[in-house]
């Protein structure tokens, strides 16, 4: 054999939600996101794979497609790559066509369409364990003969579930040849699919019993909606109820650390940077990790279960009325984690107007970076007591804030729809997958990764901004004849005081104004910034080591607290989100429009809240 200069290029393709990415992770050892709905992967991913025999390959993971006639942007990526039209990328040498063994009627047709390209290919019968459990018998050798391409069974979610595929890849790579069987270009692929199914597959029932039973309840006009409401509501209660004990521990830990460091070091700029800047600032953000993890535990479990497309089904009509679509539901739900993956996930929305509307309102979904801000303010201003027999008032307010974001999104997209006078047809055509029990191991891995992402943010951008802010708050130093606290003479102090002119109608004091600016880079920084501002303006070290929450609940009026909460519902989103909007829409104008309308809404709603609260005596 000749020496391999370039590794052979393999591509995984197939219908949406057949387990391509799970297989990709298994083969390459990566940890790309997998979930149970169509359209998790919206762009190509590349990895390296070394087979047991030591050969190395480049493996591409492509977005799922129902057909090589693309109906959406993610499907177009798949078509272009397979055909070799994708800019800067050679066509793959061998196609690995992945099919869901429980859903062959749909998936085999796509295999036939791919086979028409005449490239060397392999068919991976994935989820063969689930097929066996449902009593589906597939004659693998028969299918291989009829299709004229090698067929192999895989279980992408099981360790070593792709070993047979690896061996087959080696064999095919040694001697790649086009499919042995080829139909004429105008052949009826559906008829051929039926013939193949009749010849090689026996299936006791067309659907899984458990799916039928669950769908009867979960899609029921009344019980289905009630279940959805209860699920969403429970999540927000749990965020408060389950996370508090751990948070108290972290709070106590940071305070103790700050005092300990303060007592060991000589007074001076360095001690101030460590205690007031880094420990107070970062500690103030890290304390919210438990809440973020509880939220993600629910989101990950829901994604794995296959429930999300059901929720999209239930809400489609309502969302269509507001100028969105059921397909917008999953991108918008992803935006609760972070708007950036949410905005990217809109690529699976076929209709360009629905997609644009979804992108524009995605920042209104309360991302996890806003959770620390909400949690801080709710902790400081909303009493923790039981209302209506057992509900935690703080949890209720949090739920209300999330709902306010959702309702605002519906209102904004409704206005856009009216504005466009849009009467056109927006297709839905959404697949509802089989239910799956979330795998605890995958859940834990997912949570671990979220924790790492969060801690990296804390150690990276939040750390950097906190230090920068400390510098701006400390220098220039106060003149010797100063009458005001030193912080008032610092650069940031002056900026904060200047901004109060703009934000006074909202009840924001200069400390808040300072915190809003770094909050543009990462919203959690608003919390660490407040912590640093207050630590630096504290009269003595003991006050500086205090937790932030009591400081602001003593220092601010209730009206200010509420106004800031409302500000963050709309919070002109972070710079990274602006960049994502620019990238996904290719338009500066759209980006400016998104940033502008969010700022305007934030300002108006926040001012309204403050003024009303003051009139009601909360000033």
């Amino acid at each position, binding site marked *: 054999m000749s020496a391999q200069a370039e590794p052979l290029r393999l591509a995984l393709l197939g219908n949406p939600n057949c387990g391509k990415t799970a297989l990709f992770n298994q083969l390459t050892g990566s940890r790309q996101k997998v979930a149970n709905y169509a359209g998790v992967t919206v762009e190509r991913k590349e990895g390296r794979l070394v087979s047991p025999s030591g050969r190395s390959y480049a493996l591409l993971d492509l977005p799922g497609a*129902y*057909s090589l*006639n693309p*109906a959406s942007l993610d499907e177009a990526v798949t078509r272009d790559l397979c055909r070799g039209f994708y800019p800067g990328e050679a066509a793959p040498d061998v196609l690995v066509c992945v099919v869901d063994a*429980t*859903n*062959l*009627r*749909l998936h085999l*047709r796509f295999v036939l369409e791919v086979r028409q390209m005449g490239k060397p290919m392999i068919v991976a019968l994935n989820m063969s364990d689930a097929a066996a459990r449902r009593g589906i018998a597939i004659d693998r050798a028969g299918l291989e003969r009829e299709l004229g391409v090698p067929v192999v069974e895989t279980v992408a979610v099981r360790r070593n579930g792709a070993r047979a595929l690896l061996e087959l890849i080696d064999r095919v790579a040694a001697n790649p040849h086009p499919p042995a069987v080829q139909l004429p270009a105008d052949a009826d692929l*559906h008829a051929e699919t039926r013939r193949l199914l009749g010849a090689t597959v026996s*299936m006791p029932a*067309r*659907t899984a019993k458990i*799916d*039928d039973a669950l*769908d*009867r309840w979960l*899609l*029921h*006009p*009344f019980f*289905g*909606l009630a279940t959805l409401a209860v699920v969403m509501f429970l999540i927000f209660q749990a965020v408060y109820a389950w996370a508090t004990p751990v948070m108290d521990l972290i709070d106590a830990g940071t305070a103790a650390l700050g005092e300990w460091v303060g007592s060991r070091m000589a007074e001076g700029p360095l001690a101030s940077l460590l205690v007031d800047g880094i420990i107070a600032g970062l500690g103030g953000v890290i304390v919210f990790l438990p809440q973020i993890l509880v939220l993600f535990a629910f989101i990950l479990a829901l994604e794995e279960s296959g429930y999300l*497309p059901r929720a*999209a*089904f*239930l809400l*489609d*009509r*309502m969302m*269509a*009325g507001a100028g969105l679509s*059921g397909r917008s539901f999953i991108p918008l739900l992803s935006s609760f984690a972070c708007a950036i993956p949410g905005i990217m996930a809109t690529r699976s929305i076929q209709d360009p107007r629905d997609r644009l509307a979804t992108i524009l309102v995605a920042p209104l979904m309360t991302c996890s970076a806003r959770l620390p801000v909400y949690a801080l303010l709710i902790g400081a201003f909303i009493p923790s007591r039981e209302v209506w027999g057992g509900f935690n008032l703080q949890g209720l307010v949090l739920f209300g804030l999330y709902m306010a974001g959702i309702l605002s999104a519906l209102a904004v997209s409704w206005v856009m729809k009216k504005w466009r006078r849009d009467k056109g*047809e*927006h*297709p*839905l*055509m*959404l*697949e*509802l997958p089989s239910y799956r029990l979330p795998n605890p191991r995958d859940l834990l891995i997912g949570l671990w990764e979220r924790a790492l992402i969060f801690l990296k943010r804390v150690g990276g951008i939040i750390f950097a901004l906190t230090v920068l802010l400390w510098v701006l708050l400390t220098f220039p130093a106060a003149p010797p004849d100063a009458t005001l606290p030193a912080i008032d003479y610092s650069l940031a102090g002056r900026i904060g005081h200047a901004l109060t002119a703009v934000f006074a109608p909202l009840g924001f004091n200069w400390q808040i104004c300072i915190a809003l600016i770094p909050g543009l880079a990462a919203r959690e920084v608003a919390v660490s910034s407040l912590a640093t501002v207050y630590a630096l303006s504290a009269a003595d070290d003991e006050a500086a080591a205090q937790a932030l929450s009591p400081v602001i609940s003593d220092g601010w009026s209730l009206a200010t607290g509420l106004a800031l909460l409302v500000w963050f519902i709309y919070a002109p989103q972070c710079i990274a989100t602006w960049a994502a909007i620019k990238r996904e829409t290719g338009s500066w104008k759209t980006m400016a429009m998104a940033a502008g309308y969010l700022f305007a809404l934030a300002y108006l709603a926040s001012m309204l809240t403050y003024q009303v609260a003051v009139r009601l005596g909360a000033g």
Partner: protein
Amino acid sequence: MRTVLDTGSIVTLSELPPRTPVIVESVEDRQPNDPVARRLRELGFVAGEPVQVVARGPFGGEPLLVQVGYTRFALRRIEAARVRVAAAGEAAA
């Protein structure tokens, strides 16, 4: 509401009561080269294929959940209206 399909009558999927097994006759183009109709055919809505509506959405009976092959798709009524169906008995012959 119509409950049973008369022999020989052809209706569209959107008019069908839930859990009535039928057979696809054809998918109609609403406009030349209709992308929605093309996609429906790719998803398996082709002549002779058994289908049924298994559920309806809570608001205004939309969308419809349609079983085709081994798969369930949520279709808006205007999409389902492109699919012409006939009673299960005769088309199977």
